[in-house]
């Protein structure tokens, strides 16, 4: 059977160059980077070389780069770490205020919900029908007690690109006006192969990246932390990673991450062009061939790799499984795939009716996607949807 993987936003295959780069560090050069002997020194040199490489790729300093366990742990460390630092003074009844958006990944949202339980106040910014946050609403939400704002660079479900530069400028102006210091974090996990990651230009204080989303291995995340950011660890046990992510460094994964980031950024220009073209073909084809379908996310301000839809009068998991039976891998934000009773919080925040959100499907393209694969999807999908709709009761 033909196999078509269109779930690159979930995870990507590790690049062959990355496998090669990692290979000496499993059994041959296996030292602990904290050891003083030659094995250890070799590992330390390797880790610091990778750190320098990552730093220069995003226009940061090496000491501003922390390697963590996953994308999720990077998000957790950024938010909880900044909040933890505030805790000793919070005993003096000072209120601390945090801002995020309603469409963040659960690694962010669940962390803020946890902090709310701890007594922090949190604002969840709304989005428009395209999934875009509003700068005016953000400006109004900022108070003298605001310590941290976290807004994702681009949404992983619908691909909408948020105005990160606009947000950082707004925060800077507000900080000056109110005479306060607040930090800006962005989860950039979804964008690495396609968008500018220059932290100076973006104006962010903290930024999350996850290796397996851009051709690197699973089990390692990056957190950029701007010098001077007041942050405490959230796990304890050692001096590693500036004491912010204690634990023996995963040398092969860190090496692989640096190599994957290097290749991703080097190829951004060609990736954007190639993938956007295929995605446009997919979007146009689906909207033309499948009636009662809506494109979700912003029509223009969207990631090159994401084509996301709601198919009316069908359920997302059923579509996903039928496509899988035809060899096509996609994702759905339907309630049935979330283990929750509600469909995607992103689609609901965008004002999409619940019954339509149940029929959501995300195609995410990547390095190995071909035009032939898109043609195959355009041949299979209309049949799958029409077969499923034949099962739908007429009166619903």
């Amino acid at each position, binding site marked *: 059977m033909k196999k078509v993987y269109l779930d690159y936003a979930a995870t990507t295959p590790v690049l062959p160059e990355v496998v090669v780069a990692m290979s000496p560090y499993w059994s041959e050069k296996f030292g602990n980077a904290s050891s003083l002997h030659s094995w250890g020194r070799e590992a330390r040199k390797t880790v610091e070389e990778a750190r320098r490489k990552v730093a220069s790729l995003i226009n940061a300093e090496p000491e501003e780069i922390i390697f963590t366990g996953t994308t999720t742990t990077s998000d957790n460390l950024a938010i909880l770490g900044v909040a933890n630092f505030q805790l000793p003074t919070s005993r003096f009844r000072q209120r601390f205020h945090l801002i995020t958006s309603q469409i963040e990944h659960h690694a962010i949202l669940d962390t803020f919900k946890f902090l709310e339980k701890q007594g922090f106040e949190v604002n969840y910014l709304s989005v428009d029908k395209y999934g875009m946050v509003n700068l005016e609403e953000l400006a109004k939400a900022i108070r003298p007690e605001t310590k941290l704002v976290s807004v994702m660079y681009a949404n992983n479900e619908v691909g909408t690109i948020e105005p990160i530069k606009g947000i950082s400028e707004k925060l800077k102006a507000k900080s000056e006006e109110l005479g306060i210091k607040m930090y800006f974090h962005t989860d950039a996990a979804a964008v690495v192969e396609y968008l500018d990651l220059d932290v100076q230009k973006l104006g962010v204080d903290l930024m999350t990246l996850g290796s397996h989303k851009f051709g690197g291995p699973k089990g390692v995340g990056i957190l950029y932390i701007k010098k001077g950011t007041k942050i405490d660890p959230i796990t304890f046990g050692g001096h590693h990673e500036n004491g912010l992510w204690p634990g023996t460094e995963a040398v092969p994964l860190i090496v692989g991450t640096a190599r994957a980031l290097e290749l991703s950024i080097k190829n951004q220009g060609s990736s954007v062009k190639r993938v956007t073209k295929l995605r446009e073909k997919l979007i146009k084809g689906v909207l033309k061939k499948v009636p009662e379908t809506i494109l979700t996310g912003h029509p223009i301000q969207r990631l090159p790799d994401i084509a996301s839809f709601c198919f009316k009068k069908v359920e997302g998991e059923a579509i996903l*499984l039928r496509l*899988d039976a035809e060899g096509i891998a996609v994702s759905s934000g339907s309630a*049935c795939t979330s*283990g929750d009773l509600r469909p995607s919080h992103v689609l609901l925040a965008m004002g999409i009716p*619940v019954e339509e959100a149940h029929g959501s499907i995300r195609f995410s393209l990547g390095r190995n996607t071909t035009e032939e694969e898109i043609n195959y999807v355009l041949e299979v999908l209309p049949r799958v949807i029409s077969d499923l709709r034949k*099962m*739908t009761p007429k009166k*619903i």
Partner: protein
Amino acid sequence: MTDIKGLYSDKVMDHFLHPRNMGEIKNPDGVATVGNPQCGDVMQMFLKIEKKDGKEYVKEAKFQTLGCGAAISTSSIATEMIKGKPLAEAEKLTNKAVMEALGGLPKAKIHCSVLAAEAVKKAIADYESKKSVPK
């Protein structure tokens, strides 16, 4: 966005990919719709009843379902389980029996088997209520 295919039994996948008795019955003797589109699952059950030797039997059972893999497969197998059965027996179809016939369901999908059993019961109740009204 969790891939739950691994949690479905082969039997569930078989009924999902090859649903039995899918469609409508024109002028059904009993019909019922359960669930709602806000929850993501709507099941409609159609029955044709016949009398043999003074006893009522389910002559035909068909379904239409908007829903996930489990919703479709539970409705499909429910129609198989009641077809040809005496009405009194069909009425006793439980969600547990539906689940067992499918080789089990993931925890989050148990409510689909409840819906399927409810659809059968309500379609039979619809038949009974029509019967008691003199034409």
